[in-house]
C-alpha cells in the first residue's frame, strides 16, 4: 500500500523537517514494514514547464512542428514535436536533456539528449502525459496529444513537480505486514499510529451533522453480515472532475481519478480505510435492503461481469432486485453515469469472512473487498461519513440532503482483557512501572484500570475486531511501544539431563557424508512430484501413487513413490555437460497405503518413507566395472556409517532393472532396497543418450544403526600369514558366491581368507568358461609355515573347488 506523506500530515502534525528515514525505520521496527520511501519529484527531474512562443511547420516532415519554447532560462529553445494540439501561449511539460521518459508511454525508459529530428536541432522534448508517467492523472483523449498545463498558472521554467504540487513523499508499506491491522488501511490509521509513536496530537474529524427526520429508509436483513449501514440521499450533484489536489492524491497512491462523485468515495476510503459507495438515486426503486442473495439471482456488475449469485452472497438490493455486491463492487444498474443528478451514499460495515468468500468465489477482489476482509470496526463509519459529507458540501454548494438513515443494530463491543502484571513483567523480562505501562497503552487508545496486580484494559474500537483479544496481544503492544530493540537480550537457562543421542538421524547424515565425501557423489534435490515421462519410463505403473489435485503442471501430478525417476531426469539434464558423474538424493517417498494416526486419532496419514537413492552414470561399455564400483559403495557403507551390514540376494527384480544386472539389498531378512543397471528400454525412454546408469535405492527407515561401535580386537598373528593367488577355470555361470561357499573357510584352518581378485573371459579361455583369480590368506597359529605347507593348503582349496564346481587349474 502506498501512502502519501502530505496526506498523513492532514491528520498529524509531523514537523516539516521530520527525518523520513527515521520515520520509515521506526514504523518498520514497531508497526509495519516500510519497503520504500519515494520522493515523487525525483520522477520529474529535468522536466520543466515551458511556454510555447511559436509553432512553425517542419521543413522536411508533415507531421512534425518546430516550436520555439521559453523554458525560463532567458533563451528561447527550438524543440521539434509531433503533437497535434500545439498552440502559441500553451504551457507544456518540457523534458530537457537528462530527463527520463518513455516513448509513447511504452517500453524501456530513455534518457533525453539534444538531437536532430529530420535535420532540425531539437532541445529536449515536449511531452504527452503518458510519456512522463502522468497518463492516469491527465488522460489524453487521443494519440499524440500533448499534455496541456495551461491551467497551472506558473512561470516558464518551474519544475514540473513543483508546478503540479507533487513535492510529496510516498511510503510504500508491505501489505503482508499489516494483514492483522485493519486499522492501518488508510492514511488516518497510519497517522494515528505515528501520533502514538511520537506522542503527537491526532486531528479528529468534525462529525457530520445530518438530520435523521426524513422518511428515507434502509433495511438490514442480516445484521451479522452487515452490522451497520448508513445511507445518505442527496440531490444537487453532478458528474464533473474533482479538484486537482483530490485527483492528484488519489493518483499518487496508485488509483485512477474518475469524476468527483467517484473520487470522493475513493478519497474517503483511502483516508479512513472504510470503503464507501455512491449509487445513482434515480435508479434505485423503493428503499435499500441489505440481504442475502437468492439462489441463482443475477447481478450485472459495473465492470460488465454478469454473476449468478448464491445464498451465501450479501447484496445491496432495491425493490426490484440486487443492485450491488455488498462490500465488493457496485452494479451496472445504479452506477454513476454522466447524467447522474441524485445519489445515495453508502457508508457501511460488512462482516469480513463473508466478503472474502464472495470476492474469492467470483474472483473479483477489489480495493473495497480487500479492506473489508481485514475486519473493519463499524465505528469507523462515523469518520467516513464525516469526511464524505465535508467533500460533498465543498464540491457541491447546491447540495441538498434529502434523506439520511444510520442503521447500527449490531454494536461493536470493545475488547476487554485482564492482564496480570506479574505475568507481564515475567514475559517482558523487565519491570516497567504501572504508569509506564498505562502511558504506553493509553496513547494507543486503550482504557486502562490498574488494581493491585491486575490490569483491566479496554481496547479501542479500531483494534477490537479480532486484532486485540488475549493478554498476549496486550503484552505485545506494551513491548512494541517500548521498542523491541530496547530490551536487553537475556540468555536461556536449562538443565541438561543427558547427552543428545539420535541414532537414526545421525545415521542418515553419516550415509550422506559417506556418499558425498568418501565416495565422490554429488547430492541433489529434486521436487517431490515426478514428470509423467520419467514415471512411465522408469516405473510404468502409477498404481498406489498419491497425486496432487492442483499440480504445478498437468504432467507433474504424481508424488514420488521412489526417488529414481527424478534422478534419471537429473542424469538426462547433466548428460549434456558431463560424461561421467554420480549423484544421490535423500528425500521422502509416498504411497497411497498403510494410513496411520500417530498424533491425532482423527487424522489419517499415508505411508511416508525416507529413501536414499543414487545414480552412477558412466560411458556405456564396462558394466562390470561400473557394477562393482556401485556395489563397493554399498558394501562399505555399513562399515563407515555404523549400521548393521548389508546382504545381497537375487529375489525380486526391480521393474526398471536390466534382466541380469541387479540385486536386492537386505539387512538380516528384511529387504531394504535394490541395486541394478537401468535397462535399455527405460534408458531410451528417459532420453539418456550415451550413458550406462547404475542405480540403487534404500529405505533408510529400515536400516539398523549400531548402538555403539562394534569393533572387536583380535591378537595380531604371531606367525606370518602369506597371500597366495590361485587362478582356476570355472563354468562361466558359476557365481563368486558359489565359489566362496565351496572354499568353505573353517575356524582354526590354515586358510584364513579367500578374496576375489578378478575374473577374466576371452582370449585363451575356452568358450563357456571364465578364469577367476582368488587370493588366499594362509597362516598358522602354531608355527611359521613352510612353502610346502602353504602349497598344500592352497592345493586342498583347489581340490575342493574341482570337486564341488568342476574347476580346472589354469596354466600359470
Amino acid at each position: 500500500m502506498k501512502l502519501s506523506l502530505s496526506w498523513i500530515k492532514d491528520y498529524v502534525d509531523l514537523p516539516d523537517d521530520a527525518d523520513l528515514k527515521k520515520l520509515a525505520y521506526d514504523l518498520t521496527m514497531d508497526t509495519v514494514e516500510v519497503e520504500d520511501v519515494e520522493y515523487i519529484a525525483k520522477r520529474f527531474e529535468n522536466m520543466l514547464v515551458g511556454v510555447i512562443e511559436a509553432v512553425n511547420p517542419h521543413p522536411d516532415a508533415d507531421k512534425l512542428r518546430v516550436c520555439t519554447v521559453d523554458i525560463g532560462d532567458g533563451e528561447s529553445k527550438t524543440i521539434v514535436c509531433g503533437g497535434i494540439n500545439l498552440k502559441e501561449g500553451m504551457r507544456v511539460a518540457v523534458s530537457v536533456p537528462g530527463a527520463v521518459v518513455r516513448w509513447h508511454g511504452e517500453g524501456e525508459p530513455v534518457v533525453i539528449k539534444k538531437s536532430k529530428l529530420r535535420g532540425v536541432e531539437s532541445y529536449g522534448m515536449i511531452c504527452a502525459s503518458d510519456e512522463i508517467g502522468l497518463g492516469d492523472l491527465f488522460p489524453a483523449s487521443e494519440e499524440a496529444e500533448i499534455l496541456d498545463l495551461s491551467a497551472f498558472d506558473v512561470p516558464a521554467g518551474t519544475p514540473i513537480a513543483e508546478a503540479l504540487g507533487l513535492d510529496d513523499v510516498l511510503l510504500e508499506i508491505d501489505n503482508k505486514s499489516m494483514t492483522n491491522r485493519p486499522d492501518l488501511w488508510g492514511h488516518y490509521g497510519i497517522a494515528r499510529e505515528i501520533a502514538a509513536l511520537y506522542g503527537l496530537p491526532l486531528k479528529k474529524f468534525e462529525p457530520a451533522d445530518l438530520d435523521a427526520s426524513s422518511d428515507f429508509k434502509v433495511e438490514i436483513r442480516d445484521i451479522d453480515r452487515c452490522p451497520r449501514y448508513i445511507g445518505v440521499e442527496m440531490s444537487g450533484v453532478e458528474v464533473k472532475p474533482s479538484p486537482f489536489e483530490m485527483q492528484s492524491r488519489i493518483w499518487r497512491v496508485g488509483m485512477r481519478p474518475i469524476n468527483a462523485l467517484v473520487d470522493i468515495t475513493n478519497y474517503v476510503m483511502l483516508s479512513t480505510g472504510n470503503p464507501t459507495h455512491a449509487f445513482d438515486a434515480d435508479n434505485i426503486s423503493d428503499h435499500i435492503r441489505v440481504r442475502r442473495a437468492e439462489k441463482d439471482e443475477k447481478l450485472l456488475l459495473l465492470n460488465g461481469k454478469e454473476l449468478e449469485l448464491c445464498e451465501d452472497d450479501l447484496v445491496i438490493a432495491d425493490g426490484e432486485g440486487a443492485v450491488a455486491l455488498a462490500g465488493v463492487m457496485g452494479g451496472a444498474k445504479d452506477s454513476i453515469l454522466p447524467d447522474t443528478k441524485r445519489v445515495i451514499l453508502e457508508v457501511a460495515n460488512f462482516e469480513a469472512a463473508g466478503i472474502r468468500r464472495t470476492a474469492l468465489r467470483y474472483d473479483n477482489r477489489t480495493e473495497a473487498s480487500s479492506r473489508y476482509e481485514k475486519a473493519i470496526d463499524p465505528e469507523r463509519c462515523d469518520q467516513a461519513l464525516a469526511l464524505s459529507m465535508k467533500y460533498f458540501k465543498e464540491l457541491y454548494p447546491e447540495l441538498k440532503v434529502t434523506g439520511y438513515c444510520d442503521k447500527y443494530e449490531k454494536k461493536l463491543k470493545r475488547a476487554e482483557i485482564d492482564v496480570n502484571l506479574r505475568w507481564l513483567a515475567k514475559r517482558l523480562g523487565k519491570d516497567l512501572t504501572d504508569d509506564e505501562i498505562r502511558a504506553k497503552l493509553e496513547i494507543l487508545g486503550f482504557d486502562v484500570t490498574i488494581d493491585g496486580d491486575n490490569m483491566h484494559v479496554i481496547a479501542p474500537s479500531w483494534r477490537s475486531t479480532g486484532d486485540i483479544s488475549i493478554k498476549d496481544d496486550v503484552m505485545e503492544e506494551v513491548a512494541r511501544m517500548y521498542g523491541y530493540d530496547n530490551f536487553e537480550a537475556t540468555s536461556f537457562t536449562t538443565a541438561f539431563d543427558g547427552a543428545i543421542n539420535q541414532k537414526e538421524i545421525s545415521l542418515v547424515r553419516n550415509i550422506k557424508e559417506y556418499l558425498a565425501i568418501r565416495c565422490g557423489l554429488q547430492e541433489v534435490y529434486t521436487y517431490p512430484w515426478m514428470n509423467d515421462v520419467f514415471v512411465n519410463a522408469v516405473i510404468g505403473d502409477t498404481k498406489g501413487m498419491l497425486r496432487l489435485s492442483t499440480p504445478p503442471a498437468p504432467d507433474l501430478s504424481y508424488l514420488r513413490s521412489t526417488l529414481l525417476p527424478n534422478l534419471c531426469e537429473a542424469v538426462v539434464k547433466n548428460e549434456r555437460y558431463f560424461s561421467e558423474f554420480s549423484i544421490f538424493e535423500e528425500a521422502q517417498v509416498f504411497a497411497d497405503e498403510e494410513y496411520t494416526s500417530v498424533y491425532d486419532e482423527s487424522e489419517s496419514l499415508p505411508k511416508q518413507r525416507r529413501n536414499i537413492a543414487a545414480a552412477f552414470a558412466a560411458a556405456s561399455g564396462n558394466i562390470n566395472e561400473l557394477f562393482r564400483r556401485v556395489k563397493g559403495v554399498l558394501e562399505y557403507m555399513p562399515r563407515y556409517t555404523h549400521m548393521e551390514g548389508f546382504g545381497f540376494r537375487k529375489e525380486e527384480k526391480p521393474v526398471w532393472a536390466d534382466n541380469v544386472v541387479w540385486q536386492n539389498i537386505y539387512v538380516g531378512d528384511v529387504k531394504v532396497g535394490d541395486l541394478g543397471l537401468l535397462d535399455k528400454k527405460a534408458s531410451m525412454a528417459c532420453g539418456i543418450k550415451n550413458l550406462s546408469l547404475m542405480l540403487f535405492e534404500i529405505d533408510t527407515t529400515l536400516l539398523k544403526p549400531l548402538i555403539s561401535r562394534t569393533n572387536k580386537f583380535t591378537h595380531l598373528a604371531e606367525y606370518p600369514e602369506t597371500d597366495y593367488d590361485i587362478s582356476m577355470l570355472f563354468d562361466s555361470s558359476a557365481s563368486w558366491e558359489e565359489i566362496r561357499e565351496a572354499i568353505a573357510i573353517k575356524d582354526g584352518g590354515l586358510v584364513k581368507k579367500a578374496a576375489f581378485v578378478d575374473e577374466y573371459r576371452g582370449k585363451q579361455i575356452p568358450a563357456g568358461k571364465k578364469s577367476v583369480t582368488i587370493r588366499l590368506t594362509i597362516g598358522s597359529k602354531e608355527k611359521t609355515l613352510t612353502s610346502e605347507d602353504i602349497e598344500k593348503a592352497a592345493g586342498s582349496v583347489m581340490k575342493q573347488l574341482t570337486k564341488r564346481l568342476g574347476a580346472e587349474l589354469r596354466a600359470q
Partner: protein
Amino acid sequence: MKDKIERILSEAKARIMGAPAESELQKVRSEFVGKQGALTLLLKELPKVELSLRPEMGKILNVAKNTVMELIDEKRTELKLKASEVSPDFDCSVPGIMPANGGLHPITQMCYDLNDAFRSMGFEVFQEDDITSELYAFDKLNFPQNHPARESMDTYWLEGHDSGSTNEKLCLRPHLTGGSVRYMQTHKPPFRFVYPGRVYRNETTDAHHERAFFQYEALIVDKDITFTSGKVLIKSILSKVFGTDVPVRMRSGFFPFVEPGFEIDMQCQVCGGKGCSVCKHVGWIEVMPGGSPHPNVLRAAGLDPDEYTGFYVNIGLDRLVMMRYGVDDVRLFHSADLRFLSQFR
C-alpha cells in the same frame, strides 16, 4: 714443499666440500690428481728433493693424493644420494589428482552447520513427514478458518483428500510449524529442538520464489522464558554459521501462530549494512519470523499457556544460503545441475 702440499691439500678439500655436482668433482680430480694435477706434478719433482727427505715427502704426497681421491669418492656418493629420482625439469606446479569429486548440497551443508551449532547448545534434531493434514497445517496453528493460505492456490492438496473436514484434508506441508506441534504432543517439556525440512507452496516461480524450499525451525518451550531471550540465541547461531559477529534486529511482525511475533533481520553480509542491491539498500535482510508460540498453539500441543511459554524461529535456509554465497536465483537449488552444485564444498 711440505707447506706446499698442505696448501694444495686444503684447497682440494675445500673445492670437494663445496662441489655442487659431479662435474665439479671431475674437474677437481684432474686439477689435483690427474696427469697434470698439482699433486702429480709434485710427485714428478720428487727426484729433485734432497735424498734424506725424499721418503718422507713421497709418503706425504701419496697420502695426500689418496686423501683427495677418497674425498672425491665420498663426495660423489653423497651427491648421488642427494640427487632427485627425476629429472630437474619435473613440474611441481601441476594440479593434484582429486580424491573423490562429490559434495553435499549447499542447503544440506547449511543445515548441518546449523545442526552442529544448535546441538552444541543442547538441541535435539527433529524430523517429520512431508504430507500432513489441514488439522496440523492450519487448525492447530491458530490460522482462522478462512485464512488465504488454506486455499488451493497457496497449498498443494492431495487428490482424493482435498475435501471434507480439516482432519481429512491432506497436503504437502506448507510450513514446518505444524510438525512442531507433533513434537510437543509426544515429548515432555521443557523442549529444545530444531526441525529442518522442506515445505511446499503452490506459487509461480521466479528468481526469488520457489514451490519447494527449505525451512529450519527452532523451538524452546519452558517456564519463565522472556521473549527477548531469543535474540541471544539467534545472534549466536548466525554468528557461528557466518563465522563473524552478525548484528541482528527484531521488529514487529505478525504470524497467526505466534504472539508476539517478530520479523528478525540480520545485517546484510554482502555490504556489511551499508546498503546494496541484495538488501534493497536498507542494510538489513529479513531472514526469519520468530516469536512466542501463540497460547492456542501451546494448547493444541497439550500445554498450559499460563504455565509454559517459549521462543520460536523459522529460518529460511534458501535465503540464508543465497546470502552466504551470493546466489541470485533460488530455482538453482532444485535444478540438480552439477555445474551449480559442484561449486559448493
